[in-house]
């Protein structure tokens, strides 16, 4: 435990100022302990005790009100731009892509690109894909519905999440296994073994470059009514995206859109299996599907924390983080904060304070309307066809910190 003594001005009476020492006990969380869990009693106790904790790797903001305010604070930058360098990767294809990615850009460099990408991902444009998302969900479900069982990740979540990206980008859906493999391999770059796995990562990224460059050249020659054409034609005040910027953005879309959606679909299924009465409510009221997505992302997000780095010395109330410090935002913990959510039980009809499962501020997830809509359709189609869904065999899960979700989730169900 770390104890900070601060002196607070207190009780101004009779022109006399009393200064009372007030002790704030800042909790400590060992987040590199393999047994560390976001769902643990230790984390809940820390949230009750104070709004942030110290960790062995920076600070962790725990309460919803503080996550909401500080996640958007411009004194904190996205911070993962230096990830490859911190892990011994200083040049090469991956380094060059990563350090120019929207995800890690800041200031005007970020705003210019974000501005040109945003409209293609607006609700209006993404809603137009709903019939295709729905047909895809129905096709995948029809593949196992009569058998009464499925392996949720392999039979549904992974092909669904990947084929949605194919639909959006115009990559033939039949090539989804290649896209899934590429996205998974590039994902290895987020692990501490990045340097060892660099040749494999760069080969996959090179393959993805090939897809992206092909799509861009094709839409430049043959524009159509789709997302890639809208990106190619994006033009603001005479400025447009260069071919490299377009390629980098398409690669980020595929890299960032696949495993996050696959994992969140699995977590949504887990949450709904624990709340069968809510599942029946969804089946009876499919119009609640979009709210159901918000509710499972609040309570059980795949992105259990979001990380920022202090650009300058960062002071907020009793937190004094020197420039360069890491500040984590624990989204799963803040999404279950009883101060913001007095009745935290899953309720797909509830109107809630916003969750931060898509991050927040200028780096707010670009593809969130895609994720919101495709997951709502997946839940709607599943609840229409299936009831009494239960785990059927050995399930396997990623650790529950970082980006979590099921690796394997065998299910049995009754056909409705």
């Amino acid at each position, binding site marked *: 435990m770390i104890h900070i003594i601060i002196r607070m001005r207190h009780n101004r009476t009779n022109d006399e100022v009393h200064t009372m020492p007030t002790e704030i006990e800042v909790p400590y969380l060992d987040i590199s302990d393999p047994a560390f869990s976001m769902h643990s009693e230790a984390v809940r106790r820390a949230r009750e005790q104070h709004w942030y904790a110290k960790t062995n790797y920076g600070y962790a903001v725990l309460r919803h009100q503080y996550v*909401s*305010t500080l996640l*958007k*604070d*411009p004194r904190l930058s996205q911070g993962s731009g230096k990830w490859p360098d911190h892990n011994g990767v200083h040049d090469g294809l991956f380094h060059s892509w990563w350090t120019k990615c929207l995800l890690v850009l800041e200031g005007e460099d970020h*705003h210019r690109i*974000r*501005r040109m990408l*945003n*409209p293609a*991902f*607006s*609700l*209006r444009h993404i809603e137009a894909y709903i019939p295709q998302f729905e047909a895809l969900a129905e096709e995948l479900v029809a593949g196992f519905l009569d058998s009464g069982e499925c392996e949720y990740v392999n039979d549904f979540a992974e092909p669904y999440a990947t084929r949605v990206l194919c639909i959006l980008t115009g990559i033939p859906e039949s090539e989804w296994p290649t896209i899934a493999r590429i996205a998974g391999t590039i994902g290895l770059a987020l692990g501490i073994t990045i340097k060892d796995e660099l040749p494999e990562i760069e080969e996959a990224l090179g393959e993805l470059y090939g897809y992206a460059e092909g799509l861009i050249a094709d839409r430049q020659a043959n524009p159509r009514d789709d997302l890639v054409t809208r990106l190619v034609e994006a033009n603001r005040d005479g400025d447009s995206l260069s071919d490299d910027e377009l390629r980098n953005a398409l690669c980020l879309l595929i890299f960032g859109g696949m495993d996050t959606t696959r994992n969140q679909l699995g977590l949504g299924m887990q949450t709904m299996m624990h709340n069968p009465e809510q599942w029946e409510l969804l089946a009876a009221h499919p119009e609640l599907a979009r709210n159901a997505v918000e509710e499972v992302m609040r309570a059980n997000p795949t992105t259990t924390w979001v990380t920022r780095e202090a650009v300058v010395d960062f002071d907020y109330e009793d937190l004094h983080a020197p420039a360069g410090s890491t500040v984590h935002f624990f989204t799963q913990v803040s999404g279950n904060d009883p101060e913001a959510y007095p009745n935290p039980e899953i309720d797909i009809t509830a109107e809630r304070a*916003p969750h931060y499962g*898509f991050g*927040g*501020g*200028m780096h*707010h997830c670009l593809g*969130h309307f895609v994720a919101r809509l495709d997951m709502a359709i997946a839940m709607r189609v599943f609840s229409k066809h299936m009831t009494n869904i239960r785990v059927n065999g050995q399930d396997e899960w990623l650790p529950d910190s970082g980006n979590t979700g099921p690796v394997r989730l065998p299910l049995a169900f009754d056909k409705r």
Partner: protein
Amino acid sequence: MQISVDRAKCDNHGQCTFSAPTVFRLDDQGILQYEASVDDSLRADVEEAADVCPMQAIFITD
């Protein structure tokens, strides 16, 4: 044109400030401030801001 922001929905992410920086800005506290009445020449930018708002909190009232 007249603009209104549903403060109950707005979560101050600031995406609108990229689309229409002369209309929307975040103040020192990170709270959205905006011009409620702007020249019609800014309509395309404001429509884009409303379109891309993650919370869908921006409305053009005429």
